[in-house]
């Protein structure tokens, strides 16, 4: 890891961790949340909901940072985040 400066305040930076909640039966399969999640937390599932659409599932739960973009983009009020905790930042290896 040479040549990478470690920020002095790295111990103070805390990255939020979020939990995704999905109301499967409200989903109409538009795909906005999956497409625009910045951390690829969601993907299309194979299961059908009661309307016949494929709701999203959480495939990378550890990568959710509670940004709330899925919650804001969803036209059906079917998905939202809650803050689960925070972790320390670290340099990616």
């Amino acid at each position, binding site marked *: 890891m040479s040549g990478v400066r470690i920020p002095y305040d790295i111990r103070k930076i805390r990255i939020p*961790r979020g939990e995704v*909640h999905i*109301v499967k039966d*409200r989903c*109409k*399969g*538009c*795909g*906005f949340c999956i*497409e*625009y999640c910045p951390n690829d937390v969601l993907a299309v599932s194979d299961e059908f909901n009661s309307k016949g*659409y494929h709701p999203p599932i959480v495939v990378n739960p550890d990568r959710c940072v509670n940004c709330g*973009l899925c*919650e*804001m*983009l*969803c*036209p*059906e*009020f*079917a998905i*939202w985040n*809650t*803050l*689960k*905790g*925070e*972790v*320390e930042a*670290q340099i990616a290896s």
Partner: protein
Amino acid sequence: MEALETVKVKEKESHPMEPLLRMDRMPHIWCPGCGIGTTVTAFVSALEKLEFDLNKVVIVSGIGCTGRVAGYIKLDSFHTTHGRAIPFATGIKLGNPDLKVVVFSGDGDLVSIGGNHFIHAARRNIDITVILVNNFIYAMTGGQVAPTTPVSAYTTTSPFGNFEPPSNIPQLAEAAGAVYVARWTSLHIRRLTKSITEALQKPGFSVVEVISPCAMYYSRINRLGEGIDMMRFYHENSIIKHGEPTENLDIDYQKQIIVGKFVDRERLTFIESHKQWIGETKS
């Protein structure tokens, strides 16, 4: 890596917006991939950020897909006749100036049949906020051409392609006298929410135009894909240019869309002018 600290876990049983939605009328009628639901989310987030007294917020909408918003937000809401949302809102505002009146309606409703009222409410600078969802089409009635439909687009009443030049809503609003004019797409969700908070706080006639996909009609008839394809198009082809002169904001068919905040100026509102000229109306 340190173990996950459980900082105050806010376990929400339900979607955070549910207190402000009429959940007994869900699911709503909007199609999969429609941007109106997203616009409603932006609006409700804006209201929550501003910490308004929600009892004093009144939503007035017209007829059309966007007009159905009045039925789904749990505030005092009025679902009025086609095109007459703005004068109805004027009546409510003048009847009780303490209310915060928001007009939430579509492009056809506000700028076509309601065009005259749009122009004059802007001229008078009535203190209302207009959230205009522009999906370039009359969706509720099956996809007819609208005054905002770009040239060459197909719709059910322009079966050979639309040849009428469309309205440029920010230019119209600025020319008529609006004090705040902004345009965003339903993809620019955070900037849209911020714009709505600014528009709600600005005294006078503020217009926020929201370009939204119409997955079932506009996109389908023109073979533009689904809602997600329209969103990808907005991602690639929208460019933020705050303060751009409104005459440059025409929207051509499947070309660049300029978004941003274009007008933010000061003018006396109707009620302020009334007070100045005629004196306080004690009611």
